[in-house]
C-alpha cells in the first residue's frame, strides 16, 4: 500500500517512545491532581493529613502506571481488548455474588487489601472492546445492521449487570459511553433514533413489573427531594456552601461551611464544593476550564491518530472522563440527583484514581503509537 510508506514509523527504542509521550498532557493531569491536593489539604482542616499526602502518593504511583502503559504497543493492547471485556464481565458477576454491600448496593469487590469497583474497570474494557470491533468496520459494513448486533450485546451485558447491583447511575453512564462509541464509529443517525425512541416505553414496562420496594428505590433516585433530610440534605448544604463562595471565594482554608461539617462527604463526592466555597466562582470556572482542556487534549489525540482503533479508544476514554466530570459537578450543583461519582484526580479515593490513570495510560499509548501501521485486514485485502 502506497500510503503506508508515507506514514512515519516511530523508532521503537524506549528512548524514542519516551520522547513521543505527550508531556503537555501529562502536565495538565499534574495540574488537576495539584488542585486535588490543595482542596484535600483544606478538607483535612488545613493539614496534609489525612487526605492530601495520600492523594499525592497515589497520584505519583498512578503516574508511573500511566507512563508504563503508555509505552506498551497499542496493537498489543488491542489484542487484550476482548479478554479484558470478558474479565470485566466476570468481575461484575463476582461482585454480584460476593461483593461488599456498601450503601445498599453491591459495588465493591475485595481483593486482599485492595478494594475495587469492577464497573469502573468495565467501562475501560468496554471502550477497548468496541474500538477493536469497529476497527474492522468498513463504511459499507457499518451499514449492515447485523454487524451492529454483537457490539450492542457487548454494551448491554455489562449495563445489565451494573443495573443489577443496583447502580442506576453508573449503568446509565456506561450506556451513554457505549452510545458515544457507536456514534463516533459512524453508525447512521436514524439507527440511534430507532434504538433510543423505545427506551421510555421499555422503562415504563420494566417499572410496571418491579416490586414496590424496587420502585421506591427508583423513585428516591429520581426525586431525592422527597427525602429532604437524606440525599436532599446534602444537596441543600452543598448549594449553600457554593453560594457562600460568591465571585472571589472565602479564601484558602476560610470556607466555614465545609469546615463546620455541614458538608457531607466533602473529601470525596463533594470536593468541588470546597473549591467553589474557598476560591469562588473564579476558582470553580478555572478548574472547569482545566477539566475542559484535558477533554480537548484527549480528543485531539483521537483526531491525530491514524488508525481507527486508536481514534476510538482515545475518544472513548475522553468521553468517559467527561461523563465523570459532568455527573459529579452537576450533582454538586443539584442539577441531577446524587450519584456517588467522584471528581477524577481531585476526589479522595485510591481505586478510582488508579482506574482513571490506567485509562490515561492507554490514551497515552494511543498517542505514542498514533502513526503505527495498524491496518484493517479486510480492507487491505
Amino acid at each position, binding site marked *: 500500500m502506497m500510503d503506508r510508506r508515507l506514514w512515519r514509523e516511530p523508532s521503537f527504542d524506549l528512548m524514542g517512545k519516551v520522547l513521543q509521550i505527550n508531556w503537555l498532557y501529562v502536565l495538565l493531569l499534574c495540574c488537576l491532581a495539584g488542585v486535588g491536593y490543595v482542596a484535600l489539604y483544606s478538607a483535612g482542616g488545613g493539614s496534609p493529613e489525612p487526605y492530601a499526602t495520600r492523594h499525592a502518593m497515589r497520584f505519583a504511583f498512578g503516574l508511573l502506571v500511566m507512563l508504563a502503559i503508555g509505552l506498551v504497543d497499542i496493537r498489543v493492547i488491542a489484542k487484550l481488548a476482548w479478554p479484558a471485556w470478558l474479565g470485566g464481565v466476570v468481575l461484575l458477576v463476582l461482585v454480584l455474588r460476593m461483593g461488599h454491600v456498601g450503601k445498599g448496593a453491591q459495588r465493591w469487590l475485595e481483593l486482599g487489601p485492595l478494594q475495587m469497583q469492577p464497573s469502573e474497570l468495565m467501562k475501560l474494557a468496554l471502550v477497548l472492546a468496541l474500538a477493536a470491533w469497529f476497527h474492522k468496520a468498513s463504511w459499507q459494513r457499518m451499514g449492515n445492521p447485523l454487524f451492529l448486533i454483537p457490539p450492542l450485546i457487548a454494551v448491554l451485558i455489562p449495563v445489565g449487570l451494573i443495573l443489577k447491583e443496583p447502580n442506576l447511575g453508573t449503568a446509565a453512564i456506561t450506556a451513554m459511553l457505549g452510545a458515544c462509541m457507536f456514534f*463516533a464509529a459512524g453508525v447512521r443517525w436514524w439507527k440511534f433514533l430507532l434504538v433510543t425512541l423505545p427506551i421510555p416505553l421499555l422503562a415504563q414496562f420494566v417499572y410496571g413489573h418491579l416490586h414496590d420496594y424496587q420502585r421506591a428505590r427508583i423513585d428516591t433516585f429520581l426525586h431525592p427531594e*422527597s427525602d429532604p*433530610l437524606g440525599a436532599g440534605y446534602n444537596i*441543600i448544604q452543598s448549594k*449553600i456552601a*457554593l453560594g457562600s463562595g460568591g465571585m472571589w471565594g472565602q479564601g484558602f482554608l476560610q470556607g466555614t461551611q465545609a469546615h463546620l461539617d455541614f458538608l457531607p462527604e466533602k473529601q470525596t463526592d463533594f470536593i468541588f464544593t470546597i473549591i467553589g466555597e474557598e476560591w469562588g466562582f473564579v476558582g470553580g470556572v478555572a478548574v*472547569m476550564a482545566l477539566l475542559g482542556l484535558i*477533554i480537548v487534549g484527549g480528543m485531539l489525540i483521537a483526531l491525530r491518530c491514524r488508525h481507527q482503533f486508536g481514534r476510538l479508544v482515545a475518544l472513548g476514554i475522553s468521553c468517559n472522563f467527561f461523563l465523570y466530570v459532568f455527573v459529579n459537578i*452537576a450533582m454538586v450543583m443539584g442539577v441531577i440527583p446524587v450519584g456517588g461519582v467522584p471528581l477524577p484526580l481531585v476526589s479522595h479515593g485510591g481505586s478510582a484514581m488508579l482506574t482513571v490513570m490506567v485509562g490515561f495510560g492507554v490514551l497515552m499509548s494511543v498517542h505514542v503509537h498514533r502513526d503505527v501501521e495498524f491496518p484493517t485486514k479486510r480492507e487491505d485485502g
Partner: protein
Amino acid sequence: MKRDVERTGVFTRRALLLLGGQLAVLGTLGSRLYQVQVREGARYNTLADENRISARMIAPPRGRILDRFGTPVAGNITNWRAVLVAEQADNVKATLDAFSALLPLSEYERVRIDRELHRRRKFIPVLVKEFLTWDEMAAIEVNAPDLPGIAVDAGTSRSYPFGSQLAHVVGYVAPPNEADVADDPLLALPGIRIGRAGMEKYHDLGLRGRAGAVQFEVNAVGRIIRELDRQEGIQGEDVGLTIDSGLQLSVLNSLGDESASAVVMDCRNGEVLAMATNPSFDPSVFNSGVSQAQWLQWTNDRRTPLINKATSGLYAPGSTFKMAVALAGLESKAITPADRINCPGYLDLGGTRFHCWRKGGHGMLNLRGGLKNSCDVFFYEVARRTGIDHIATMANRLGLGVELDLDLPGQRTGLIPTREWRIGQGHAWNIGDTIVSGIGQGYVQVTPLQLCTYVSRVATGRVVQPHLTRKLAGVLQPGVEPDDWPMLGMTDKMLNNVREGMWAVVNEAGGTAPQARLADPSVQLAGKTGSAQVRRVSRELRESGHFDSDKLPWEYRPHALFVAYAPYDAPRYAVSVVIEHGNAGATAAGPVARDIMAATLRRDPANRSVSPSAQVADARP
C-alpha cells in the same frame, strides 16, 4: 483506501460534534455555577452565615379505617401538643424547668424527654406534652419568651367512633418503641402512632403514609424567619372493611352481657360482616398509654376482655362438630346415608361406657335422624367406623383446626387430634379418643371464626376464607365473587345429607333447636347446637341423678354453641355463636343465633352496596 479516508472523515466530523457538545455542557454548568455562586450568592451567603436552613419533617395523617358502607370506624382528631426543638433552645434543661413550672411534668415524662433528646437529631422536635387543653395552650403562648424552643403544634390522634364495639377487629395504635424507630425514621416524629393490634396492625404500613417536610430559614438564635419550602405528607391509605358496623352493634346487642363471641359471614365469599366479642375494651386508651391499674383489671378478668374470642378463643366444638364427622364417614364410605344405628343410650367399648346425652337412648336412627336428634351414640359409632385420621382430614378441609387465610393478626389454630399428633406427645392413641372426638370433645379445639368458616363451606361447597379487608385506598380487593374461591370437591348430593340434617334440627318437629326457628316462615335457617363440657362429668355424679349443670359454678358450666346458615335453599349468611359457660347450646346460643340471623337478613349487608343514610346514622353510637 478511499473508504478509509471516508471513514476518517466521518470520525473527525462526529468527534468534533461530540467535543462541541461536551464543551457546551460544561459551559452550561459554568453558567449554572455563576447563577448559584454569584447571582444567588448573597442569599446563600446569608443562610451560610446565620446557620441557614432548618428542616422539619411533618407527620402524615394516618389512613382511616371504614366499614363496608364507608362509615369511619377509625379516624383522626386534632391533638394539640407542645414540642421542643433542641436546636432552637439555648438551654434545654432551663426550658424544660420553665415548662414544668407551668404544666407539671412527671419524673417519668422527664426521663422520656431526655432520652429522646439524646437519641434524635437536633432539628427533630421532641414531644413534651400532648392532648393540651385550651387553657394549657394559652398558658404556653403567654409565656413563650421564657420557653425558647417550645412550640405548640396540631398533631392528630386516633379516634375510634365505635370504641369497644369494634376494638378487637380494628385494633389500636400506640407510640412506637425504639426498635420500631430504627426501622423507619418517620416513626421518630412526635405523635406518630403505630398499629399494635387488629387491622391497625395488619395494614400498618399502608395506613402510615409518607412524611412531608418543611424547610425553614432560621436566624442565629434559631427563630424561624420564614418558610422556604413545604411538602405535605401523603395521607395513609384508607382501609375498607367487610364489617357492617350497624350489624356489629346489633350482634353485640344480641350477645347481651354474656362472655361470648359471634361471627357473621357472607358464606358465599368469606366476607366477615360482624365479629363480636364480649366483653371488650376501649382502644383509644392505648393512644396515650395504659395505666397499671387498668391493665391489671383487664388481665385479671376471667372474662378476658383483651382477647378476641372469635379468632383466639379455643373451645371444644361439641355437637357442632358432627357435620364434619358425618362427611368424613360418607366420603370414606364408612357409612351411607341410609345406614341405621341403634342408640340404647350408651355405647360400651373397651370396658368403658360412653353415654348419649339422652338417658333412654334414641332407638334406630339414620344419618339425618342422628343429626336432627344430635344423638351421641350414633356419632360414636360413625367415628369408630371412620377412624380419627379421616375425621381430622375432613375437619381441616372444612376449616377447623387449621390456620385460616385471615388478615387479622393473632388467630389461633386450635387442634383436631390425629394419631400422629398423640404419638408425638408420647402417648398411644386409644379408641376412646376417637369416640369422644366423634362428638367434638376430648382434644378437639376450634375458634368461633373457624366454626363460621366451616358452616359456610358446608353450606356453599366452596373453600371460602374469612377476611376483613374489602377495599384498600378505595379499590375493591379480590375475593368478592364466589368464583374467586375454589370448590371443596364434594358433591352437593353428599353435602345435602348433612344440610338436610341441619334443617331438621331447627325446622322439624322433634329437632334439638326449635328455639332457633326464624319468625318469618318464608326464610328457613339450618343450624346445629353444641354444648361443650369444660370438665369431665364423673359417672357417680351422672348416675346419682343430681347432675344439673345450672347449679355448677360459672367456670365449670359447659360452653353453649350454635352454628347456622340461611336461607336454607340459597345460603347467603353463616353465623356462629359461642357463649362461654352458657350451659346448653339450644337454649342459650340458639335464640341468640336466631336473632343475629334475623338482623342480618333484615339488613342484608351483602346485597346492599350503599347504606341508606338513616341506617348509617343509627349505626353511630
